[in-house]
């Protein structure tokens, strides 16, 4: 083993030399392996890491014992996609969707007489901002809860509430167990 190789080995021990070529030599060259051992012994000695008696028996015996061991071939690391950051977003989006649709459908049901202009009648010349329809104020004389339509809505609401309650306890995977069904009822 020449001086240059030994200097490279010294740097390799300190993690300051690119390893692949050095490792190949180190693994197969006995004299290099002995130098590796002595250089580490110097370090152990200076750091006071030496046992009372020094021998190379451990490495010799481990090497012998491992001859009969099956060779390690570790599987390559396959990075799994991390869904965690997106799970919260998905849940929040779903809840928002449920909330928007329930408000929208409630508005639609509560304002049946709002005359939405028919598509055929309107010509869209420029982009228009979406306006929520004004909630219609019912005449005080007519009690909303008495109409057949509102009774039907109330029954439907109750049904949905019960359904969501049981569904969340059913151990069924999906978004509904985490979402609350929200309904709006206009107060008289």
């Amino acid at each position, binding site marked *: 083993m020449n001086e240059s190789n030994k200097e490279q080995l010294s740097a390799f*021990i300190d993690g300051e030399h690119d390893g692949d070529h050095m490792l190949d030599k180190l693994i197969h060259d006995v004299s290099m392996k002995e130098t590796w051992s*002595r250089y*580490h012994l110097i370090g*152990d000695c200076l750091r006071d890491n030496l*046992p009372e008696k020094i021998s190379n028996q451990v490495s010799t*015996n481990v090497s012998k014992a491992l001859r009969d061991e099956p060779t390690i071939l570790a599987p390559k690391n396959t990075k799994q996609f991390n869904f965690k950051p997106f799970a919260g977003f998905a849940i929040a989006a779903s809840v928002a969707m449920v909330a928007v649709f329930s408000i929208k459908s409630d508005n639609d049901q509560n304002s049946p007489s709002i005359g939405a202009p028919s598509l055929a009648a309107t010509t869209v010349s420029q982009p228009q901002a979406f306006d929520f329809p004004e909630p219609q104020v019912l005449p005080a004389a007519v009690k909303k809860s008495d109409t057949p339509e509102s009774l039907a809505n109330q029954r439907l609401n109750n049904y949905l509430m019960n359904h969501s309650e049981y569904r969340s306890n059913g151990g069924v995977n999906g978004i509904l167990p985490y979402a609350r069904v929200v309904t709006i009822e206009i107060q008289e």
Partner: protein
Amino acid sequence: MADKVTDKQLIDRVKKGEKAAYDLLVIKYQQRIVNLVSRFVRNQSDALDVTQEAFIKAYRALPNFRGDSAFYTWLYRIAVNTAKNHLAVQSRRPLGNDYDISEIEQIDGADALKEQATPESLLLRDELQSTVLKAIEDLPEDLKTAIMLREIEGLSYEEIASVMECPIGTVRSRIFRAREAIESEMKPLLEN
């Protein structure tokens, strides 16, 4: 940090099926682990057996080593657990119930026990230490500073270059020359 880089390269090789790379890790850490185990297991030959067992366990568990911690930290834990298990087994063994000779033949590491019977083959720590310290004393100041900053303070070459106000290449050369000088003093002891 520097240790971590070299260890990682060796571990990668072992994981690719090169058992010989593991020998280098054993050679590197054997003295440190024997020293550690000796704090738990007083008997010297038992300490060597426990160390050997710890290294074999580490080899078998290496596919599970993810490299989150340094290899030595991981190995340290394995060695401490192996030593503790050894002590637990010893404490359960009834007093006076010694191994008979046929049993010894079947124990893993029985070879080590036999080799232990020749104490003159073992080098005493104090002898080696005084030789190394003498060699360090005899070194020129720049080599002595470089090797001490590296081995005792654990500084990188770049940090040593900054402390000593010289190029990294000079640091590399000084550390190597220091090692060479110390090695030449200790070699006769090891060969004997």
